[in-house]
């Protein structure tokens, strides 16, 4: 009997580094607890699931801090799962973004006609997928992480299920998302066929070698990157974004436009820097076109929006273009490549904080005006000066006006583009510059409405902001102001967010 089992028993358990996996384990445990609490409590006590989810996310930050203090990359499963500085910085970003999303959601979901327990369960699952994505260094792991974060997001986008708009949002997001996954998988199958490996480091070696010269390698790379271009809503794959953002509950819109987009960028960075860099001649023109189109189209359509959420949808499309821009010069030299990574990671960190803050204000104002029109912000400064000033700060930070934090993000993008010195880098820098001016117009337009116009219905009763929203807003505003004066904080984080090579 034992002899028959010998081949099975000989299976050696892979070494598991529990400390490195601790954030994911804590999140999984929280998911289970939320599920159990949801089934075992009555409808009136469901708010507890929100608090448990929040505590779980904050608790998952603790091992990230201890891992950062201990330092050193931890490589597991033959290089398929790596916890390095890049992974830690982005895991922390996802957890903070997830926690702020919870703060934005608490009142919105409790007061609306929504299911509470399931909502927090799905947000947690999505954040869990994102933390896995930050460590995924293998095609299968990237695929699983992508689905883990996307599938709950499809449901959350359609959470207003009693409204046709909510259904439409969920359906569009779902169809486009699954289509993108299929395209990406097909690209992965081509790359796997050529390299006989799914680990990014090994694929990188082969793409630098003989496989990289074959046309099928270029085809696979383009398919995979196009799949992720959907995720980050790059033009021409952005059609789902405005409709999904408008139809989803606003906290989820904030979550999708920030965390889900960041996860797409994390995957692109890992794939480009670790695996595909050998074919920079394919990636650079592709990213150049994507970035230029994304910025320009996103900004031009945003100019004529009258609905604030829709405006932010197109503005977030355009912001994705700014983040793609440095990738247009990736791999042209070693120092440029390092600057590109810094620029993208730094932009992601800054954009996440500022955009979440702006959505917090939109939710707070929407609670009173019950309207999504930009005109409903008229006269905000008269009856809610605090909100108006905070929103003004977020808007000018998004536009990139010093001393608010956004200028530093744009500065790093310019630096990376110009440091390469070639024609493509310089022209891209010009495109970025022109687009920053266009974006300033519509951001400033909202500010003008808030400070100059009269309230549309003459209603000047002050807005009562619930504590969780106020906390989210305060955190974002503090970061926007403080980091704007000392950009070294973000620079330091972005500089250290490098990949552990090898493994």
């Amino acid at each position: 009997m034992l002899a028959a089992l010998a081949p099975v028993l000989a299976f050696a358990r892979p070494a598991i580094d529990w400390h490195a996996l601790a954030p994911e384990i804590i999140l999984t445990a929280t998911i289970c607890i939320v599920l159990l609490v949801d089934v075992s409590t009555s409808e009136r006590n469901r708010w507890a699931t929100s608090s448990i989810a929040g505590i779980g996310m904050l608790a998952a930050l603790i091992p990230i801090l201890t891992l950062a203090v201990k330092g050193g990359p931890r490589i597991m499963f033959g290089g398929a799962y790596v916890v390095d500085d890049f992974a830690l910085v982005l895991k922390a970003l996802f957890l903070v973004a997830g926690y702020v999303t919870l703060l934005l959601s608490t009142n919105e979901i409790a007061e609306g006609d929504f299911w509470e327990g399931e909502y927090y369960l799905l947000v947690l699952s999505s954040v869990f997928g994102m933390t896995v994505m930050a460590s995924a260094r293998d095609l299968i792991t990237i695929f699983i992480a992508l689905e883990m974060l996307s599938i709950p997001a499809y449901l959350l986008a359609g959470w207003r299920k009693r409204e046709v708009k909510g259904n439409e949002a969920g359906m569009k997001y779902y169809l486009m998302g699954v289509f993108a996954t299929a395209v990406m998988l097909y690209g992965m199958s081509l790359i796997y066929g050529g390299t006989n490996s799914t680990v990014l480091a090994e694929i990188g070696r082969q793409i630098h070698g003989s496989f990289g010269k074959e046309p099928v390698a270029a085809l696979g790379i383009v398919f995979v990157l196009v799949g992720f271009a959907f995720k980050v809503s790059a033009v021409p794959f952005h059609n789902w974004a405005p409709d999904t953002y408008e139809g989803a509950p606003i906290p989820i819109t904030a979550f999708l436009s920030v965390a889900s987009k960041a996860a797409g960028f994390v995957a692109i960075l890992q794939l480009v820097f670790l695996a595909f860099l050998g074919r920079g001649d394919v990636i650079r023109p592709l990213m150049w076109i994507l970035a230029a189109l994304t910025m320009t189209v996103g900004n031009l359509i945003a100019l004529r929006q009258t609905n604030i959420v829709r405006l932010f949808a197109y503005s977030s499309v355009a912001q994705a273009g700014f983040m793609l821009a440095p990738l247009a010069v990736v791999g042209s030299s070693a120092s440029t490549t390092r600057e590109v990574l810094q620029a993208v990671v730094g932009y992601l960190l800054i954009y996440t904080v500022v955009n979440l803050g702006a959505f917090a204000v939109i939710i707070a104002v929407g609670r009173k005006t019950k309207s999504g029109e930009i005109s409903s912000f008229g006269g905000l400064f008269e009856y809610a000066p605090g909100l108006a000033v905070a929103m003004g700060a977020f808007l000018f930070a998004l536009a990139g006006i010093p001393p608010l934090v956004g200028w530093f993000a744009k500065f790093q993008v310019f630096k990376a583009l110009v440091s390469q010195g070639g024609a493509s880098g310089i022209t891209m820098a010009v495109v970025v510059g022109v687009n920053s001016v266009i974006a300033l117009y519509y951001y400033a337009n909202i500010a003008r409405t808030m400070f100059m116009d009269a309230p549309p219905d003459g209603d000047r009763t002050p807005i009562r902001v619930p504590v969780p929203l106020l906390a989210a807003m305060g955190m974002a505003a503090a970061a926007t102001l403080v980091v704007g004066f000392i950009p070294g904080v973000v620079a330091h984080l972005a500089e250290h967010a490098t990949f552990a090579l090898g493994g």
Partner: protein
Amino acid sequence: MMLASTLGPTPYLVLGAVLFTVGAVGLLVRRNPLVMFMCIELMLNATNLTFVTFARQLDDVGGQVIVFFVLVVAAAEVVIGLGIIVGILRRRPGATADDLRLMKG
């Protein structure tokens, strides 16, 4: 297995590419949400076929393992997708993708 050794991998890869194209074109052309949904399944299965063919050709079990992952994820996606479609059809029987255009611009 006999067939595979005489034919070589090319026909399977071509079939995979054709199925993938059929699915992609179908998704863009057809307007019934359920049919669009089936087109996506077609694309995923084309991917599976390609993975299995490569796995056999390279004599590597990894490619076949990927197929299991894809199958499981596709099953989860079906559950979510049908849920969303049922949610829509309950409110608007016979809805096509063209009816879902409340939001524009």
